[in-house]
């Protein structure tokens, strides 16, 4: 019977060995996993949705917008992969418009694009809910749902939307576009979501396009709208566009 007795010191040795083995293996596992978890944390993009507290908008100073300058249009076309053509079937997201008051002779030049209305008629008429307004006020076309019926193009009082008539190739990976769908200015949503300004605002040599959050009382755009006279185009339609014009 005495043979079966276990030496207490032996137990301790085994326990110690096991403990140190567990410790080292835990350490090794931690070292192996940690960089992966850190990398994963760094690598995933923006996981929170667009905020309803924000309302993105623009203030366009027509006094600064130069007649004949087309830089915003060029920047938009380059960013979003549009051709520079202006034919009847070529998509255009921004157009430069020249206005002249016939009685006074005062001439104006301004960029015209999707006005990102608070109550967008294009969203009202869309039969597939492809046209929609994002929580932060950006009006977009969900091309996964768009059937190309073009009701929204007829509903838009600003003629801001275009239909893609031709097959496209070599699109910007950030801006998917394709034949058979309607599209318009996205306020460069892919840039805005990364904290950048829209391409047109960045490209304007005269700083005529001011982009920002209309709801943030301390933002540059909100302060300027409070201090200078600005107008919405076709304000009588009560669509409350997010794009405002100064000196109109």
């Amino acid at each position, binding site marked *: 019977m005495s043979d079966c007795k276990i030496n207490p010191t032996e137990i301790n040795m085994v326990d110690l060995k096991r403990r140190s083995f567990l410790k080292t293996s835990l350490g090794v596992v931690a070292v192996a996993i940690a960089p992966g978890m850190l990398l994963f944390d760094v690598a995933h993009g923006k996981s929170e949705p*667009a905020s309803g507290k924000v309302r993105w908008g623009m203030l366009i100073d027509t006094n600064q917008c130069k007649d004949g300058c087309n830089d915003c249009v060029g920047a938009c076309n380059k960013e979003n992969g549009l051709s520079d053509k202006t034919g009847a079937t070529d998509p255009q997201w921004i157009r430069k418009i020249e206005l002249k008051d016939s009685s006074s002779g005062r001439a104006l030049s301004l960029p015209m694009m999707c006005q990102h209305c608070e109550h967008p008629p294009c969203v009202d008429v869309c039969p597939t809910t492809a046209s929609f307004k994002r*929580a932060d006020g950006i009006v977009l076309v969900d091309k*996964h749902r768009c059937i190309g019926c073009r009701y929204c193009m007829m509903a838009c009082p600003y003629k801001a939307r275009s239909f893609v008539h031709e097959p496209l190739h070599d699109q910007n990976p950030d801006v998917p576009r*394709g034949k058979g769908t309607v599209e318009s200015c996205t306020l460069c949503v892919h840039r805005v979501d990364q904290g950048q300004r829209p391409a047109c605002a960045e490209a304007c040599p005269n700083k005529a396009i001011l982009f920002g959050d209309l709801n943030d009382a301390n933002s540059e755009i909100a302060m300027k709208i409070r201090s200078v006279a600005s107008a919405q185009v076709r304000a009588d339609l009560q669509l409350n566009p997010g794009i405002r014009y100064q000196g109109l």
Partner: protein
Amino acid sequence: MKLLASLLLCLCIPAVWAAGADMPKIDIGKGGQCVKDPQWMRKNHMRLLKHQRDETVRNGVRDEKSSLKNCIECHASIKDDSVIARDDSFCVACHRYEAVKVDCFECHSGERKSAWLQRNAK
């Protein structure tokens, strides 16, 4: 009985070999596993992509983990930076084998973003 077994074996080996020969040869690019194991992804990648696309387009959630752009980043061929350029490209090889039309790339770019940016820098 022995004869029957050996006969069966003789019949099975070429069958297995032939099945293996028919499998698509896929250029998996850099490859690697960041979402789920390959077998799960083969069955379910379309569900992930469909869920993610609505989250991104409609709600502005730009989580990269299951975004199409992030898939392309690793699975585009090292040779031509694309998942659709050749018959053995990552998306094309399987979809052709399974005879399932892939619509994504009528609008989406099948090219790795870094390569596209480099090409369009000028």
